[in-house]
């Protein structure tokens, strides 16, 4: 459905006295999203994951690399032609409170795109009401109760469902969920996540799931691939369960260590760790981007920039191994660390450990 190769995006900032300098938000991101598949991106704030989501929905431009949607390379197309492809990719926003127009009812919010869509595909625009009811039912809302309401009359979880219903009005093939559950009560998150999973299986919609909470990425369905992104660069990639169970990049390990442990039910992993200092986006380094914060950094890390290589085998001397990871099969576990090592950082369920 979507193939991205070496997507880069650099922002130029102009300080009053410091002059212009370039801040890379994305440094060559590759990924493949199969039809009906799921790809998750995890990373902390400021790692470029939101920029990626905006690029994929056409709200941002990219300045390097290729983006192929449905077999068509987009950068060669005119803005108008591109818009047609981006229409198939719809965004679920992080903040359900600003994602709906406060002055319009749910009925109006869904009605306009539905009538527009009906005209395009030669349907009957008069039938939009039925279609709206159908979509609301699909996302788990009661149409009669919700249609006449304004956004402020709905709870956070209900709003997010309306947002999803609105995205579905134009029959998208891909949904981009950028922190789609982070502003919703924890108790409501699973409901939204299982809805997204449902949409994959029932409608064959592919999903790009962007989050800082690794745990939620487990709930969006099978066969998903997880990309760990750090300062605009993918540092580890593999099937979601593989990366969570056997992370090898120290950054991934830090992220996984940060997931809270439900004490009493889970035990912390024995190798739990944290970055040794806070993120500083300004540091430029010829070596590994994570080196300044990495508890295991060596001198080599400060000098050599690691590239993505498959896990196992040629773990040593990777700096020169120019493997085109795009050629590796889906689900291959790859990482960009000079000294990869499996560490047990994830919490373990207490019952499961003894069983």
């Amino acid at each position, binding site marked *: 459905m979507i193939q991205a190769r070496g997507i880069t995006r650099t922002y130029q900032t102009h300080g009053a006295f410091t002059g212009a300098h370039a801040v890379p938000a994305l440094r060559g991101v590759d990924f493949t999203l199969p039809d009906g598949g799921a790809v998750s991106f995890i990373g902390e704030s400021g790692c470029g994951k939101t920029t990626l989501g905006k690029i994929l929905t056409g709200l941002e431009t990219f300045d390097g690399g290729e983006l192929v949607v449905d077999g068509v390379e987009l950068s060669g197309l005119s803005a108008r032609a591109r818009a047609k492809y981006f229409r198939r990719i719809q965004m679920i926003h992080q903040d359900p409170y600003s994602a709906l127009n406060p002055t319009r009812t749910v009925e109006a919010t869904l009605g306009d795109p539905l009538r527009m869509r009906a005209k395009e595909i030669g349907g009957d625009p008069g039938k939009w009401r039925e279609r709206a009811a159908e979509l609301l039912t699909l996302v*788990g809302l009661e149409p009669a109760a919700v249609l006449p309401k304004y956004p402020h009359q709905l709870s956070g979880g209900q709003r997010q469902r309306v947002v999803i219903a609105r995205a579905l009005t134009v029959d998208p093939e891909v949904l981009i969920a950028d922190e789609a559950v982070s502003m919703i009560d*924890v*108790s409501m998150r*699973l409901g939204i996540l299982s809805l997204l999973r449902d949409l994959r299986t029932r409608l064959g919609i592919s999903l790009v799931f962007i989050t800082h909470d*690794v745990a939620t990425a487990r709930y969006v369905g099978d066969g998903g691939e997880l990309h760990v992104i750090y300062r605009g660069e993918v540092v580890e990639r593999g099937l979601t369960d593989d990366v969570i169970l056997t992370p090898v990049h120290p950054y991934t390990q830090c*992220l996984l260590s940060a997931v809270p*442990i*439900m004490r009493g*039910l889970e035990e912390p992993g024995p190798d739990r760790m*944290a970055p040794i200092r806070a993120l500083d986006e300004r540091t430029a380094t010829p070596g590994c981007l994570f080196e300044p914060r990495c508890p295991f950094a060596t001198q080599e890390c400060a000098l050599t920039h690691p590239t993505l290589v498959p896990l196992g085998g040629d773990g040593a001397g990777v700096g020169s191994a120019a493997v085109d990871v795009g050629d590796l099969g889906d689900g291959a576990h790859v990482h960009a660390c000079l000294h990869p090592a499996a560490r047990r950082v994830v919490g373990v369920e207490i019952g499961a450990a003894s069983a």
Partner: protein
Amino acid sequence: MSEVSVRSLTIEYQTSAGWLPAVADAWLDLRPGEITGLVGESGSGKSTLALALLNAVPAPGRIAAGTVELAGVGDVTRLTGKQLRKVRGGALGYVFQASQNSLNPLKTIGRQLLDLGRSHEVADLRALIARAKDLADRMGLDGDRVLDSYQHQLSGGMRQRVGIVFALVLNAKVLILDEPTTALDMLSQASVLDIVRKVHDENQLSTLIITHDIGAVSEIADRLAVMYGGRIVEDGPLLDVLRRPSHPYTRALIGATARIAGDVDAARALPGRPPDLTTVARVGCVFRDRCGFAVETCATVEPVLAAWEDGGRRRACHVEPSTVLSGASGTPAAVGEPA
């Protein structure tokens, strides 16, 4: 001996339908050296309860009944004017929900700190600054740099830490944190939680953390109180409550949390939506509509929070604890639309 004892506290809000209780008959103790996690969904009344500890319930709300005894001070709900201001920030340190945005953007952190000192009539401002620097340093911040910064120069996690510095700089013995990690990413959340535990232990505080995230609070709390529809429905030692939730709501809440370990398919979203002031049941149990264990009594009689086991556990439920623990739940009687 409790640092803070909340006794039969009822807080009401004025609505078009008259005065409605946002918090009903709450009993809670904060003890020195103990972190209490107060967990609930939005609209459960947990923030209102926390504000009542400062006697700072905003209009159109009022404390209708009950007391908040603060050790060495007395009933906070009776304090007014200057005495009350002295207690807020003095004995009770509060870190607000949006503390990332509650700093003045036009003043450096240091200046705001001096303002705080002056308003509390601190004689030795130098010592105040020294203490703030010390606190900041111990939280992994560069004290000098932070005091010279404006809020926009600090990241979300750093601002949260500055909020804690402000809450503790006047030697508060009670620390109240309202949703301290909600807007933070996982790495910042982990470090803030870590720091809360550290300052708590170092200063032998009585700490209350208010959150909707049972996972995050379970990382550091000693006791857990669960709130629903303005009522505390269960409380007790954290490990025990998590292992053996005795209230159907606690049980459902734990089961509805996305976790990094365990069976993905075993997780169940909580059905229905949380009630608010106007939709909460007036008679009977407030949770019965979303409850899988509800019996006939639940519709008519409101269960009271009562001790049920040794080890300081309390629950407010008509159903036998053993039934809830064994987990033989049916489908909820009536669940409206998903929230």
